[in-house]
């Protein structure tokens, strides 16, 4: 299928002006999908803070 010409190209500004550069936090799948499309990206291994139960949280406060 023929792609339509981007008639708004000259109006792009800011982050839309250049190719994106992405720092992906967490889920590797997003990083991989971007990398596969030739996008400039880095992976940052990060997971949200884990919440234990109140009882275990108190024990960790005491022992860790």
């Amino acid at each position: 299928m023929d792609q339509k010409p981007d008639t708004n190209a000259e109006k792009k500004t800011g982050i839309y002006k250049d190719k994106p550069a992405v720092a992906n936090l967490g889920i590797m799948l997003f990083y991989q999908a971007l990398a596969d499309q030739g996008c400039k990206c880095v992976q940052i291994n990060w997971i949200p803070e884990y919440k234990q139960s109140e009882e275990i949280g108190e024990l960790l406060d005491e022992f860790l």
Partner: protein
Amino acid sequence: MDVKQRIAEANQQAAECLTENDPYWVDIRPAGECVEGLEDHMILHSGPPVNYENMVMLHRRGMVSAMLFEGWAKDEKEAVEIIRSGEIKIDSALNYNTVGAGTGIITKSVAMNVIEDRRNHTTAATFPAEGPVFQGGFCGWGLYNEGIAENLRYMREELFPPMREMLAKNGGIAIKPILAESMQMGDENHTRQTAADLLFDKQVLPELFELDLPKEQIMRTVKYIVETPRFFHCYGQGASRAAAIAADGMEYSTMVTAVAGNGVEFGIKIASLPGQWFTAEAPMMKGRYTSTKYTEKDQLPWIGDSCVVEVAGMGGIAAAASPIVCNLRGMTLQESIAQSREMENICITRNPNYVIPNLDFDCLPVGIDIRLVLKTGICPAIHGGMFSYEGGLIGAGMARVPMECFQKAMKAFAAKYSDRK
């Protein structure tokens, strides 16, 4: 010194038992002579303690097989009657200085490799590889027939004497250098021992050929060694167990010293509470089956003690060392590295002996701390073999130790050490 300082100090010492260990393979002896506390009419099994009525079929069959192998019963019916009468003492192998790979059935007459840790002054006994001859399966896989029993006797009477003579002559084979080098050659030393096997062969075979024994006898033993897949696995387990035992009983330590399943429950032990198990439902494994005919429905929940190598910082902890093993589950090199990096968050220290090229020559983490597991929510990754409900190995893969085990362990630790009672 406050309790947190005591824990930090104890964990450092406990972790040193794992990193400073000096294991040697020194002998092969009947279990009754090298498993401390193993009595006559006693059967050990893998995983946390479980009674006969609650065992999965593989363990039940193992119990019966052991009765027949030892001559304690004339047939299956009598064996079950005697077991149910309570005459046989049944216990977890990890409550002793041994390790029960697979079903882990151990009785007094079974020949065991003896591993002596010359730094920690401990010994551990491990079940030897059952050889390349496929008599319809292996004892460790939860199978049994007269051929399997005969093979165990054949190993004991025919294959092992040259090995014993070699060990008596050379004073023992050092295990740690083989583990360390193989970790740089693609092994994580749980699911894969390809490099370790070759390094072991390189050292052992010339010494066997130098023995003053008939060539045929030596060649039988040599073939047993070189034709058995993953021959070195039991030595890695023995070395790990001997190191973990040294940490058992260390007051204030929150380091994990045992990780194992019995097909029903999965359990851990920690250094400061050596007599206690902390259990949860046994996890299923994700991985690859040996045949497309198998699915998760065929897979028995985790059974076996071989995660003793994870306790010592190998296997799932060492994923970065073996992207080949991780790729069996479809993982990339980067994901294998990420798995070991993730394990760094829950380990006490690093093992300077295991320097890994894929980690840009960082050392592998070692010494799982229950507090760090609870704080981060990261459960230890464990590699292993999948067993079917009927017995037999049907694949290999990975699971995570259930969080519930760590929660229970932390509560028990607090019951012993908390000042806030």
